[in-house]
């Protein structure tokens, strides 16, 4: 089953969200509207809105209420990407020029701040204190995760716990929050929205680990950036941590820095792929997915549950 087929029954609502996203990013300032539209047109999986809508289906599904949360979360994600591109000095995202490349860093900062504020405005239509506590804590954790990422760059002595905490903050928490907040907007009982948070968390962890694996096993064409780019940038991911258990390989890897040549990188990438690092990382990713499936099995049986299960399966098998 294709990824989008898993939730095709949401198509009308997702189209509505797409239209509302366009309205939401528009501003009285033409440049901001243009930048917002530029970001939307670059596409994206809209995975957060999908999780919000599906999770809301465990309660009373009212698209008018739920769409606000879905839009807010997607815009928070967009805002973070705009700032991430300044952080990484990135020229392209999904094959299109980034805001900072099309305009400059200052415009990117203002656009990101504008979008973040816009998302909170939308989010406050949900008069639920618990929801705001969850989202605000998530946002703080995501920021801390990004700061940690800078701190941990090229630190070849970091351990698995540091890596897992980092990807939890960087990726898993916002997906977990999407599930939980969708459920809260649907008015589900606490026992259910807590489970949906855990489901999102496990799937998010698996998603990021898969991303980190693909950085070595995919192609430059599919990734839209050089293979091994994360390592070259100093991000020590799970495959790297496993590969470094081999002393000889660790010696080579720990010499990587921002100016390591392509030839040197290619040799290291080949060595990592030849080791058991990739298969061991896949196992960890699968373990998280399994936990996600277990949580799902505790939830009421409905088409949203089937769709979440299909999405989780896709995440485990995706190739890019």
């Amino acid at each position, binding site marked *: 089953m294709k990824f989008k087929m898993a939730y095709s029954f949401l198509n009308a609502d997702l189209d509505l969200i797409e239209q509302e996203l366009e309205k939401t990013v528009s501003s009285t300032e033409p440049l901001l509207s243009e930048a917002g539209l530029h970001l939307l047109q670059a596409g994206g999986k809209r995975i957060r809105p999908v999780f919000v809508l599906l999770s809301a289906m465990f309660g009373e599904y009212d698209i008018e209420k739920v769409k606000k949360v879905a839009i807010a979360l997607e815009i928070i994600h967009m805002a973070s990407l705009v700032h991430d591109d300044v952080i990484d000095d990135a020229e392209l995202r999904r094959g299109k020029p980034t805001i900072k490349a099309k305009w400059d860093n200052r415009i990117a900062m*203002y656009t990101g701040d504008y979008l973040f504020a816009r998302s909170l405005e939308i989010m406050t239509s949900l008069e639920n204190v618990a929801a705001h506590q969850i989202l605000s804590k998530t*946002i703080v954790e995501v*920021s801390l995760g990004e700061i940690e990422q800078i701190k941990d760059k090229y630190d070849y002595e970091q351990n698995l716990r540091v890596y897992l905490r980092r990807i939890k903050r960087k990726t898993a928490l916002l997906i977990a929050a999407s599930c939980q907040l969708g459920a809260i907007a649907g008015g589900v009982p606490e026992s259910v929205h807590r489970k949906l948070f855990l489901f999102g968390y496990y799937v998010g962890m698996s998603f990021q680990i898969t991303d980190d694996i693909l950085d070595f096993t995919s192609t430059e064409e599919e990734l839209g950036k050089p293979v091994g780019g994360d390592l070259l940038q100093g991000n020590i991911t799970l495959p790297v941590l496993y590969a470094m258990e081999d002393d000889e390989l660790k010696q080579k890897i720990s010499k990587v820095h921002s100016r390591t040549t392509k030839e040197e990188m290619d040799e290291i990438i080949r060595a990592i792929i030849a080791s058991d690092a990739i298969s061991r990382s896949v196992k960890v990713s699968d373990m998280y997915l399994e936990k996600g499936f277990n949580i799902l099995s505790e939830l009421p049986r409905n088409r949203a549950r089937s769709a979440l299960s299909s999405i989780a399966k896709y995440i485990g098998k995706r190739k890019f």
Partner: protein
Amino acid sequence: MQDIYVQLAKIKDALHVKLTHPFLAKYIPSPMIDEDKLLLFYALFDQTDLPEEKKENYIITAMLVQIALDTHDEVSTSAHLRQEEFKQRQLIVLAGDYFSGLYYALLSEMQDIGMIRTLATAIKEINEHKIRLYEQSAADFDSFTASLLKVETSLFEHVSDYIQAGIFSRLTTAFLSYKRLLLEKSKYSSESHHRTGDSAKKKKNAGAIEWTGVYLKEFCNRYFEETAALIESSFQQPSSLQKVLLARLQSFKYNQEMRYTTLAEEGL
């Protein structure tokens, strides 16, 4: 009067605690706290019947927003940076995001969704005007000046509306407008004095719009008078806060006049 300074110092300490992050502190300068904005937020909330702790928390959240916005103004656009500078820029971006998250988290803990919305609306508006100024897309002088002052006052205006601060809303807006225009005046005169072979009557500001010295002088005088009158009339009975605000306002004027005297004595 001493009490006010003690209170302000206490709030500032609490703000410092919120802002402190060991890794950020190692690589980027400590965020600047605008003492005047702190004083003006204090003045706004001092007029309310809110419990002290709540007042302090509101002031801290509003200041976090201001600091987050100011932090992002520091992000450089340079293409060529040394490794350390690059890292610093990365952390400045993240610091601003982190401070934004903190204000949201604090207000969520206070269970005040209305204030979250209020601050978000102000941030949205400020960034719209920042872009207008940065892109020099203001259509005329009035809209340029309006944007310049909106960036400075929007946060106060929205907070004032939310807490129904009445006349204090006008007071803070006038105060901040005066301070901002004084800065423009100071920049204008400094650049005019340093220009040679130029009539020095006009200064290019933000590209498309030009200040004139006369206009700035008139504007500053008008805002000074308005602010002073509002400080006089906003308090039902004489208070320490009133004295502090007035003293602060007059110190701006005094410093500005001293500056001109020095420039004149130096023959510039």
